[in-house]
């Protein structure tokens, strides 16, 4: 986090309600996303007690898995999710051939799942793992099977690990990029206290509202873990009763379990839709559409994979896939940061506090400067010079390429930095679009500049049959752990 965010946290605390951070959204918010609120059965691993899901804020569907009746729950949930996903399979478009890529058919739009936070996203990943290897019963359509439900959940959860993907939205994570609160990140990971700071009820401070939202019986926290107080108060006796009852008695207990699950999830459901509407109301940055296009392509590719009878995702990536994936994850995070800096005032401002960006005034230009030929057959090159003076604390090294929101395609290299007591003078050499007159701003112009987006060259990885023997036996990893941060 930056000092700017910290300052907004301080202000939030002083003014008793959340303060804005970025005012522009970088992820896509669909017109009809599907909100999914999973609730795990206490003491089990990835075994839901209930899931509230649906695309209509006014009509949540509750899928209940009363102990002893998991299969019905899974078939119903699978049907619900498949109906939603398959509804995107009707409209296609043709993407014309480009370069080496042949012409391709693509879906027009993609489904979008929404969860309240990281814990729920991880839960969907584990649930996907638990379900995707289930056999498809003989004579049934694999496309509506529980196994495919597992594959899809895995697909969404894995895409969510890419900073650029909007296929699975994490509400508390996104809200935290737009608001600073007077509480810690740990507290912001829960939807109710976070929303309490953003929209405190009249007459309450954000802090008071967040404290009020802590009462688990009045405001059950978002899942997937059931709050232990709620479990003791509402569920423990029902679990015991369900164990021993049959027929009508059981029906009665199941109805009461349904009621308890609805009571637990409904407040979060309402709050989550309010959060979705709030995020949708933020204007998107320009590159948001392109990122969603990538998501649609991924969705198309995975739909094709499943339709062709492709296998579920493996338990472990082999070393090559793992390396590729890591490179892609890093690239996604870096390219997002770079494009946001050029499109979002706040991100640029944050970079100014860290020294990765600066705002300055053009004090001198040499638009017609050329450099001597680099080789025997080359001609002199046009390389205009610009001198910029700034009082931002710059932390840049020579040769670093910079770009600014005034024209992101113009890249200039840092040639020289001169520090004086009050400000810094930076000499820049224009490297791209050098013949374009707009690439050399007039003296007196104010410029915002930050590091230019890196060109991403995908590293070369060996093919699967050329993996050296030292890396072929992946084996099982012992459960790792991170030493606590306080142990230093």
């Amino acid at each position, binding site marked *: 986090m930056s000092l700017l965010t910290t300052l907004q946290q301080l202000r939030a605390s002083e003014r008793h309600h959340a303060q804005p951070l970025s005012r522009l959204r970088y992820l896509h918010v669909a017109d009809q996303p599907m909100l999914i609120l999973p609730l795990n059965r206490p003491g089990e691993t990835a075994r839901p007690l209930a899931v509230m899901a649906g695309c209509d804020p006014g009509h949540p569907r509750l899928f209940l898995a009363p102990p002893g009746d998991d299969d019905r729950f899974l078939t119903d949930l699978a049907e619900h999710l498949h109906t939603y996903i398959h509804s995107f399979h009707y409209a296609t478009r043709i993407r014309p051939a480009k370069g080496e890529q042949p012409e391709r058919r693509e879906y027009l739009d993609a489904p979008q799942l929404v969860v309240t936070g990281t814990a729920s996203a991880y839960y969907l990943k584990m649930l996907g793992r638990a379900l995707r290897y289930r056999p498809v019963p003989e004579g049934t359509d694999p496309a509506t099977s529980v196994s495919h439900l597992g594959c899809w959940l895995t697909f969404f959860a894995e895409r969510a690990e890419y900073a650029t993907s909007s296929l699975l939205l994490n509400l508390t994570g996104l809200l935290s990029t737009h608001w600073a609160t007077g*509480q810690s*990140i740990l507290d912001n990971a829960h939807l109710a206290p976070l929303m309490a700071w953003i929209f405190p009820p009249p007459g309450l401070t954000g802090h008071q509202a967040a404290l009020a939202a802590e009462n688990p019986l009045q405001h059950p926290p978002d899942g997937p873990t059931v709050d232990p107080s709620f479990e003791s108060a509402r569920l423990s006796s029902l679990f015991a009763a369900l164990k021993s009852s049959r027929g009508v008695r059981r029906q009665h207990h199941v109805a009461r379990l349904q009621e308890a699950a609805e009571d637990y999830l409904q407040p979060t459901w309402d709050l989550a839709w309010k959060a979705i509407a709030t995020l949708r109301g933020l204007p998107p940055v320009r590159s948001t559409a392109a990122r969603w296009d990538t998501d649609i392509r991924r969705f198309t590719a995975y739909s094709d994979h499943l339709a062709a009878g492709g296998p579920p995702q493996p338990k472990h990536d082999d070393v090559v896939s793992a390396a590729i994936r890591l490179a892609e994850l890093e690239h996604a995070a870096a390219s997002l940061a770079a494009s946001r800096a050029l499109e979002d005032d706040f991100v640029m401002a944050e970079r100014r506090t860290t020294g990765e960006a600066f705002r300055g005034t053009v004090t001198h230009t040499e638009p017609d400067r050329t450099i001597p030929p680099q080789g025997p057959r080359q001609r002199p090159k046009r390389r205009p010079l610009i001198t910029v003076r700034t009082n931002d604390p710059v932390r840049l090294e020579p040769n670093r390429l910079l770009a600014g929101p005034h024209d992101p395609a113009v890249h200039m290299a840092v040639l020289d930095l001169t520090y004086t007591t009050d400000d810094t003078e930076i000499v820049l050499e224009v490297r791209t679009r050098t013949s374009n007159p707009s690439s050399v701003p007039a003296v007196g112009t104010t410029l915002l500049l930050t590091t230019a987006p890196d060109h991403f060259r995908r590293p070369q990885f060996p093919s699967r049959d050329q993996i050296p023997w030292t890396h072929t036996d992946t084996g099982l990893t012992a459960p790792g752990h991170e030493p*606590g941060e306080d142990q230093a």
Partner: protein
Amino acid sequence: MSSLSSRLGTLRGPVEPKPHNARSLAALTANPGCRRRAILDAAGVDKEALAVHLGHPLPPTQSPRALSRGAQFEAQVKDQGGAELLSLLRDKLHLPLPEAAHTDLSVLGTSDRAMNVRHARTRSLILEAAHGKGASRTMLDHPVLELTVAGRPVFLEPDLVAFQSEGIFHVVEIKSFAVVDGQAPGDKAAGAVLQGAAYIIALQDLLTRAGFSPERVSTTLLLITPRDFSRRPMASTIDARHQIKSLRRQLDRLERIEDLLGQLPAGITFDLAYDGPDARTRTATRDRDDLTKALNTTEARYRANCRHHCQLAHFCRAQAHEGQLIDVLGSSASEDLGGIDTIAAALGLADGSRAPAPDQEDLATALRHAESIRNELFGGAA
């Protein structure tokens, strides 16, 4: 020593010290900089009772069903003389087949009063094995180990201690969280290793006191958990050396609690002044303001994750909020604003209304710069 224990006794008041267990010992390594907790823990003060009396109880964090499922899993693994466990241990530790034998110490009783007896029996069985005498035993079930915490003995109950014919003891922990595709959930595995570290230290101490090398105890914890989504057990190994070191450091610190006690005003007590001896019916009559004053003589260091390991967390949070401490904003803000205590002070440095101390010059400059950018973005300081 006796003056120390009488000093701690005064702090606690006329109640039994709150017994430590592996979980509370493991918590010692979290936020070790908090002096308030160090003193309360050394004196064996019931922090939960304090928090309830002060009106800041911590809501329960343990699921009743998860607890009973955990107990069921342990029973299943240990059923029939630990048949399932034995095959797992044979695999991981190469326990020799004919030597496999299982001794259950819970037959000596599971009440608190039986702890002494069970500890004595555990001790003699372990020393027998270490000497290579007596019947060959490979599994001690429900053993009781002893650890000295702040000068007082604490009984610990590991799930199991296994003995290998080459002479190495292993601590085995049975946990009900699943290890899926070879991966345990990070927070839970970390908790298990810390608890295991407490058992390993206790076992090391037992052997060193009898003249054996502490290296007779493996510093690798054996974790028995359900495999994937089944109830079938599997064994994993986790290196606990780091946790053992860090727990030892905290235990040593509790031994040196006198330094901290010396800084307290004389006559301070955290006694809740119960009106009777019966824990079920008694009421705490201690004046709350007076108790708060006493607590304020100890320096707390509130952190957002305190609630995971300290029952007094919500009280300290309320105090931090009242004092407008940076700590309520979480670790990243605390790191950014190192050396500044309060929100008002940080804002004062940012808007220039407060002059920085000599060691705050750089931070103040950065804050003023960030504040000017903030004003450009979001408008005036109103």
